[in-house]
């Protein structure tokens, strides 16, 4: 049974969080160990396993990113497999592989990494380059803003997915799914960059 079914939810991405929480508590109570105290060991063990699965399900569905990733997995999307398959196509056809992440983001990621390296090097020598620090601060704000923008974008894709599910529109589902994949890929770059910049600025 997938996580959505555990809560009797449709496989939709817009989730009523308070309702989810309520039903999580209700289901948890049913599985509470106290209720099984006088039951046979096998039954106790089964309830325990079910309860830990319930916890995983709740944690996954509660979190917007984890929920989206989980749904994509149910849809059979494995990011790594996708990338490898694309390389194989490039190898056999001789056509350049289309990078999953937009080239300008790669460019920015590379540039920022260069600056970070410079910053770390300067620090090692016991120097602090105010200009560099200032640039990194600016980069950090820019990436933070991009990161928040992805959240709004993701939510609009959720609506598209949910609507496509309601109307049973396969083409629209595929379009929404692919858009979510590329958004999550972009997001993983942004997240790494923000993390690295924060690290460099703090220490």
């Amino acid at each position, binding site marked *: 049974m997938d996580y959505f079914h555990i809560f009797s939810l449709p496989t939709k991405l817009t989730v009523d969080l308070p309702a989810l929480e309520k039903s999580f508590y209700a289901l948890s109570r049913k599985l509470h160990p106290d209720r099984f105290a006088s039951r046979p060991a096998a039954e106790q063990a089964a309830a325990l396993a079910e309860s830990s699965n319930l916890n995983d399900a709740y944690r996954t569905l509660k979190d917007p990113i984890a929920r989206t990733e989980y749904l994509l997995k149910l849809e059979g999307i494995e990011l790594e497999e996708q*990338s*490898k398959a694309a390389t194989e196509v490039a*190898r056999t056809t001789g056509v350049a592989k289309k990078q999953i992440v937009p080239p300008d983001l790669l460019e920015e990621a590379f540039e920022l990494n260069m600056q970070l390296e410079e910053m770390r090097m300067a620090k090692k020598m016991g120097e602090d380059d105010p200009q560099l620090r200032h640039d990194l601060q600016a980069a950090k704000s820019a990436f933070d803003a991009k990161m928040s923008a992805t959240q709004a974008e993701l939510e609009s894709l959720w609506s598209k997915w949910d609507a496509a599910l309601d109307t049973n529109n396969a083409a629209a589902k595929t379009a929404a799914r692919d858009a979510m994949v590329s958004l999550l890929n972009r997001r993983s770059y942004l997240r790494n960059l923000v993390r690295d910049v924060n690290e460099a600025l703090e220490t």
Partner: protein
Amino acid sequence: MAYSDKVVDHYENPRNVGTLDKSSESVGTGLVGAPECGDVMRLQIRVNPETHVIEDAKFKTFGCGSAIASSSLATEWVKGKTIAEALTITNTDIVKELALPPVKIHCSVLAEDAIRAAIGDWKKKNHVTEEVGVAVAAAH
């Protein structure tokens, strides 16, 4: 995770780290990324316009040890090869040479992508369109 000796060697003494002049006609630049982990790799080649032999290769990778080792190895391998020969290098070759575990396969994929991207860039710059096949054509 334990890295193989070869990975450690390339990681600690990376070969050919650096930059070639991006704007030069004879230089091809490939910038690629692994969405799985958010790492980026840049690989550059300088190609002899007459012979199509790769005379120099440089890389700069921001990523894990396996990615650094894969790109270091890739630059070593492409040097002295023709464009057509370099295109026959696959990520599987890299995995074998460095004894990479399954979770690190995407790092080697990145290096293969980088080689292809650099060659693609050079071809575009030099208007080379000839179909460079997967296998180097056998002499008939």
